[in-house]
């Protein structure tokens, strides 16, 4: 039950099960013994929510799309009667979805109750921290992390061990460690799911990191838009404190460590390290020039390490199973696995974890099950607003830091949005520019004004006002913004523009020269009309039209007056008979 599961009715299904068990099990203790109602985190396969596991005598059956009114039959037939309800069981694609993944960070998600520290302890929880603190020196810990090849999962992919060693090399009376859970990329929900599903793993990772650099205070900077994750994190911190995993003299050593939670206030730029630090200090979240890097001069001027949620969640596994084991997974330069939020026009949307270097086509067509509605694959957008679009011709690309960078995109935090033939690439590029332009903090000129100009040009192209030379102007301006901005936001903001021009130049040209949108998305370039043979004259479009451009007698085919039409698309949305067409 993550946010998706709850929205899909997960809590109602739970309630219904409890009720049914009580009703059936008052006299019959056997039913209760057999069944354990488990409140688990995200199962990853969000598109099939609500998922329910029923275990009878060790035999697990998984059901999909379960709603509260279906519960009584499950209880009667399967739990009491012992006959699984076959038509509600998950199909083969549930298994291809899971079988092609390698789960390390997500391994315990969906198995343990995120609100119970005992369940985390039962899967070797806090063993790695204990081992690190009681048997290893900080230098040995850093060496182990270096050896594992773990790289920062927040976007840049900087080697984690190296970052720690830079920080530890400073002489200071105070060090800080920060967990960056300000997951601002639209289309990404890895960090939310990990904190909602296994918050203790992140805390344990932070303890190991804190010990390695000598930090006695840690912060989790988390988005306020994730209320469930914030609640579960608070609960986990409280439980860890009560059990003595946080506080003074951890595991009998002289090491003290406490963690504070800071809620973000809604600013994408705060994912940038120096802006995040400014925000924790209570300032406007604006980045500053680097160097000095936070590892040398960070929070309140002290050496500070900032790592992403997923990076921390990897650490307990590295210390439990060894650096060599971790380094054996993945590709040559990118080790381990990557958690990816696979979304968009794809059959199996959800949270997945695959080894670094897996070909893009395997992710989309094996794990993802192909394109929704059997439409044609067009591109996949990775790395959120900082990344780029990867077209069909690069579908064999290995997904790791180097692979994605080689085609002008980036790993980012791991969002992957699949686009099909009905998506307009100019519109996508404009969407991301709208985002970065409004999130630009305004400190440096190239980003503040450059993104604004880029957006103006893109807007004019999508509205049919594009001019000869606009493509070249976009390219030049995009390069200037990329090369001269202060922080990562500005440097990467033009990526969507650069990559879509590179691979989908013909779509830009169609908008500018022919004043047509090939994917039929940009309304201003379309003509709306009604098919006589499909229209039943219900009048829905007539009522929906804000400018009275639709006319017609009741029960007779309607017509759109194209001189009055403002191409808003209301009639298209309103029609229940697919009689309104756009061209």
């Amino acid at each position, binding site marked *: 039950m993550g*946010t*998706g599961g*709850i*929205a*899909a009715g997960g809590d109602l299904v739970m309630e219904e099960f409890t009720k049914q068990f009580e009703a059936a099990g008052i006299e019959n203790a056997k039913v209760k013994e057999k069944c354990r109602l488990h409140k688990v985190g995200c199962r990853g396969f*969000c*598109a099939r*929510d609500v998922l329910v596991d029923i275990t009878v005598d060790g035999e697990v059956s998984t059901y999909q799309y379960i709603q509260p009114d279906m519960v009584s039959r499950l209880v009667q037939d399967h739990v009491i009667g012992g006959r699984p309800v076959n038509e509600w069981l998950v199909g083969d694609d549930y298994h291809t979805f899971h079988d092609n993944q390698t789960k390390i960070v997500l391994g315990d998600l969906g198995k343990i109750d995120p609100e119970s520290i005992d369940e985390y302890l039962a899967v070797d929880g806090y063993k790695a921290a204990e081992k690190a603190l009681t048997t290893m020196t900080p230098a040995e810990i850093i060496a182990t992390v270096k050896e594992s090849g773990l790289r920062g999962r927040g976007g840049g992919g900087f080697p984690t061990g190296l970052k720690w060693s830079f920080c530890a090399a400073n002489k200071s009376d105070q060090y800080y460690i920060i967990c960056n859970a300000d*997951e*601002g*990329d*639209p*289309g*990404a*929900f890895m960090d*939310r*799911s990990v904190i909602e599903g296994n918050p203790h793993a992140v805390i344990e990772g932070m303890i190991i990191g804190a010990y390695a650099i000598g930090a006695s205070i840690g912060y989790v900077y988390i988005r*306020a*838009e*994730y*209320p469930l994750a914030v609640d579960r994190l608070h609960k986990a911190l409280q439980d860890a404190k009560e059990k003595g995993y946080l506080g003074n003299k951890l595991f009998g050593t002289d090491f003290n460590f406490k963690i504070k939670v*800071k*809620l*973000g*206030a*809604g*600013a*994408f730029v705060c994912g940038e390290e120096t802006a995040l630090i400014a*925000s*924790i*200090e*209570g*300032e*406007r*979240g*604006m980045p500053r020039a680097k160097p000095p890097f936070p590892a040398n001069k960070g929070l309140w001027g002290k050496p500070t390490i900032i790592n992403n949620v997923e990076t921390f969640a990897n650490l307990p596994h590295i210390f439990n199973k060894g650096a060599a084991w971790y380094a054996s997974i993945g590709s040559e330069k990118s080790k381990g696995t990557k958690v990816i*939020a696979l*979304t*968009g*026009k794809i059959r199996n*949307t*959800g949270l997945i974890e695959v080894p670094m270097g897996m070909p893009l086509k395997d992710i989309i067509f094996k794990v993802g099950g192909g394109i929704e509605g059997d439409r044609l694959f067009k591109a996949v*957008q990775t790395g*959120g607003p900082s990344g780029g679009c990867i077209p069909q011709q690069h579908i064999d690309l290995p997904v790791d830091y180097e692979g994605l960078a080689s085609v002008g995109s980036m790993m980012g935090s791991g*969002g992957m*949005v699949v*686009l099909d033939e009905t*998506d307009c690439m100019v519109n*996508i590029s404009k*969407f*991301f520019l709208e*985002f970065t332009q409004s*999130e630009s*903090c305004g400190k440096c000129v190239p980003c503040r004004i450059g993104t604004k100009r880029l957006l103006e040009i893109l807007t004019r192209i999508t509205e049919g006002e594009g001019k000869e030379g606009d493509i070249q102007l976009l390219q030049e301006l995009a390069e200037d913004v990329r090369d001269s901005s202060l922080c990562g936001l500005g440097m990467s903001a033009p990526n969507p523009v650069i990559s879509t021009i590179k691979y989908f130049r013909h779509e830009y040209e169609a908008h500018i020269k022919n004043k047509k949108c090939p994917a039929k998305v940009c309304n201003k370039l379309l003509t709306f009309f009604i098919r006589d043979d499909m229209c039943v004259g219900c009048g829905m479009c007539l009522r929906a039209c*804000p400018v009275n451009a639709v006319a017609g007698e009741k029960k007779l085919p309607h017509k759109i007056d194209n001189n009055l039409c403002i191409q*808003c*698309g*209301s009639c298209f*949305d309103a029609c229940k008979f697919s009689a309104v067409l756009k061209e």
Partner: protein
Amino acid sequence: MDKQMTETLEAIYDKCAANEDNIITVLQEIQSKIGYIQEEAVNWFAERTNIPPSKFYGVVTFYSQFHQNPRGKNIVTVCCGTVCHVKGAPRIISKVREDLKLKADQDTTRDMLFTLERVNCVGACSIAPVVLVNEKVLGKVTPSKIVKSLSEYKGKP
């Protein structure tokens, strides 16, 4: 300023002072207790803490979470993440605007029953497009579905 307000602010001050909290936390507390960032409240805090009000406003205007105007009883938040965008969030926004009779520069209805807001991403992309009505998450929303959902909140002042 009335007595109740002073008490509320005093309580926030005590809580934040005890935790050594920063301006952002103070403002988050004010907003959760009062509903929005009221000028009076900021001035009270500025005086109490000896921090200029401009410093508070610098923070208020920077972060999208802070609101300087009263908001409606029900908050309708439309997710505008990438996936929601390609799956039709813009159409949902225009439908909601139409249904709530919001003018172009307006986000709150005249009767203060609804405020329309956008959020960059709520991270529930697999059930896109997503709309939040207060705390309730609605998934796989269509323009007609959202109108139906909103009607449940109407007529109950």
